[in-house]
């Protein structure tokens, strides 16, 4: 048993830290988040050159073939830099869905292009009901000769506006349970009848879209795997993406703690650094505990996903429940301990505070995951 990272992973961490310091500092983040795409072709190309767009794509499809534990290292660093743009949606949503559910032909067609940075993908899963479970997937895909026709609305779709393809979760049949009858389709974004609307978001570093389907016709080659059996792979994708998100949140929370501690050492009040006051020091200690615990459970969940242990989904929900609360607390405390400067647009704290809030409600908040934990431990 060993609960640490290996040398390659430590190297990945230091490489990524340096890379984002150089390529995606706060000024860059601000420029990117104010634009509609959240990314520049140049930065995207550099991410591809590092191999990171294909980090978890298997070798035979042009990737590095690494696992969630490796990805967690990179995601922590990306969260630390609040990197905007479609990395998450391409790697952990669209890409992972193609990897999990795609046919060989779909994998061959898309994975190498995603890994090389030539294409982007995302996952259109939730609908206006915001129901996270299988029953939330109602968008009908009606069989017709040679394929299906999709009608309806998907909401909260990350980066659909810059994606080339969308994995769309649809309902093709009514089964005995909500989990049955779900089918995944790989739909090119330029399909006729598919409309993407970029939505203004509180966390500007993460772009969300509404995607409407009006008689969108897809061929039989668009179906991913078996018709009606889309839920299990989709659930696995969401679980993995959730771990990736938790890692990103850990990295952000660590950065907020670092910024806050630095500030508390130099900011003077009543003739002393504020960090010498217990009112400040104790809050910082609480932040540290939140950050360290968040990492512990996230790393465990990543390992559990890689190994496919039975406890995997439970580990994921424990992580998301814990980290959702922790990052919110830490980023809030960061603003509080900075005082007025922490509330300004100029200071970077709000980037983290907003990312924390956005991430909290992505893939289920703490309350949702606690209930899932309760179910998984047979309470």
């Amino acid at each position, binding site marked *: *048993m060993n609960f640490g990272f290996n040398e390659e992973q430590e190297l990945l961490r230091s490489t990524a830290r340096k890379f984002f310091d150089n390529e995606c500092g706060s000024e860059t983040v601000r420029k990117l988040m104010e634009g509609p795409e959240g990314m520049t072709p140049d930065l995207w190309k550099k991410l591809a050159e590092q191999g990171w767009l294909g980090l978890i794509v298997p070798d035979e499809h042009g990737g590095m073939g690494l696992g969630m534990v490796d990805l967690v290292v990179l995601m922590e660093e990306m969260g630390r830099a609040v990197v905007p743009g479609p990395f998450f949606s391409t790697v952990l949503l669209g890409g992972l869905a193609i990897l999990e559910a795609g046919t060989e032909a779909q994998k061959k067609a898309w994975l190498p292009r995603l890994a090389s940075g030539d294409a982007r993908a995302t996952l259109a899963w939730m609908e206006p009901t915001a129901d996270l479970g299988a029953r939330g997937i109602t968008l009908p895909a009606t069989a017709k000769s040679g394929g299906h026709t999709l009608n309806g609305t998907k909401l909260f779709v990350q980066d659909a506006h810059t994606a080339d393809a969308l994995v769309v979760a649809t309902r093709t049949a009514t089964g005995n349970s909500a989990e049955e009858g779900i089918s995944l389709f790989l739909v090119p974004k330029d399909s006729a009848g598919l409309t993407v609307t970029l939505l203004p978001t509180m966390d500007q570093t993460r772009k969300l879209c509404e995607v409407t389907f009006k008689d969108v016709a897809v061929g039989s080659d668009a179906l991913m795997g078996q018709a009606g059996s889309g839920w299990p792979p989709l659930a696995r994708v969401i679980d993995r993406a959730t771990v990736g998100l938790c890692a990103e949140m850990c990295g952000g929370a660590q950065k907020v703690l670092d910024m806050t501690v630095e500030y508390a050492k130099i900011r003077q009040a009543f003739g002393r650094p504020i960090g010498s006051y217990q009112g*400040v020091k104790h809050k910082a200690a609480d932040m540290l505990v939140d950050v360290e615990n968040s990492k512990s459970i996230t790393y465990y969940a*990543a390992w559990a996903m890689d190994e496919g242990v039975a406890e995997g989904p439970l580990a994921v929900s424990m992580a998301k429940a814990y980290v959702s609360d922790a990052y919110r607390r830490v980023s809030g405390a960061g603003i509080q301990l900075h005082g007025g400067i922490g509330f300004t647009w100029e200071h970077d704290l709000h980037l983290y505070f907003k990312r924390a809030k956005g991430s909290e409600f992505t893939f289920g908040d703490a309350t949702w995951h606690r209930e899932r934990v309760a179910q998984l431990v047979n309470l």
Partner: protein
Amino acid sequence: MDFTLTPEQTSFRDEVRSWLEKNLPKDWDNRMRVGSDVPRPEVYAFLRAWQRKMYDAGFMGLTWPKDYGGRGLTFMEEMIFQEEIALAKAPPVLNILAIGMAGPTIIAYGNEEQKRRYPAKMLSCEEIWCQGYSEPNSGSDLASLQTRAEKVGQHYVVNGQKVWTSIAHQADWMMLLARTDPKAERHKGITYFLLDMHSPGVTVKPLKQITGDSEFNEVYFDNVEVPEANILGGLNNGWAVGMTTLMYERLALGFGLQVRLRIALDGLVDLAKRTRKNGARATEDPTVRQKIAQMWIDTEVFKYTGARAITRLLKGEPPGPEASAGKMMWTEGHQRLQELAMELQGPYGLLARGSQWAVDGGVWQYSFLRSRANSIEGGTTEIQKNIIGERVLGLPKG
């Protein structure tokens, strides 16, 4: 990163597991264990026998050197052992202050004679140890302690008083911090003594706690003679030695307490499943489900943060921030667990031991009250936060 066990570790785990299956005392009552942390006075004799049994089987002092009664294994085996203890819901170790604190400190600072004399008898529970740190006017500010030890011939003569001394009324030995140089700077004039509690002049007066039990005491020293040979780690070096003890305490706590918390959590879940609330099972209540799930998550998080600390330790790195945070995490979690156990009982929470209506014989009322001490004993939560703030985060002292 790998959470699977090696073949050697698996065989060690199997050894522990099958031993526990055969030897776990059948009379170990569910009602005694839900308290989860400190054993009640009424079970001391029972626990002494239990520890002896574990010692005879070779499970005490797994990480201690073989020469001093241990088994010379790593913290990994210790962690595996603790996991099995939790799974089996085995009784706690009675001589925990010796094994968690005094023993490792003697192994670290003692001379050969001391190392051969004391640790093995700690493991076998032949000699019980208590900790003589806190005084009436020196709690969190330990370096202000007033108990004095003056050299007279080959002895030191101790005068003063200690307080909140857990298990002193059962103890054979005490880790004593006393002032040996009143003129020196306050951290520098303190010496760490191994004091025989049966020495003339030692008086132990039990203190009644809010639980009604007396597990801690006042200890008075009236011209108590301690041989010079019982100094540990050198004259006037007691602060450094004592802090080592506390470091081991935190490590031991991080380990053992996670296990006791797990056992308490299982007790809580069991209680919730038996409890009805508003005409339905309590576990159907969404608020109860949320709270128990959070306890479950926190208990697991605590375990994995502990596992990270062990990994660092095995790599030869000093204990990191994970270890320092363990005590306060456990404290907060355990107090919340006990509050939740009371909340589940509703009006039945009012009934204590002695009532036939009391839930589980009133054990939860005891453990709930007892848990109030968790955030004070072994360094208050406020002191833990100072330590984390100053030593881990590098914030300036107040």
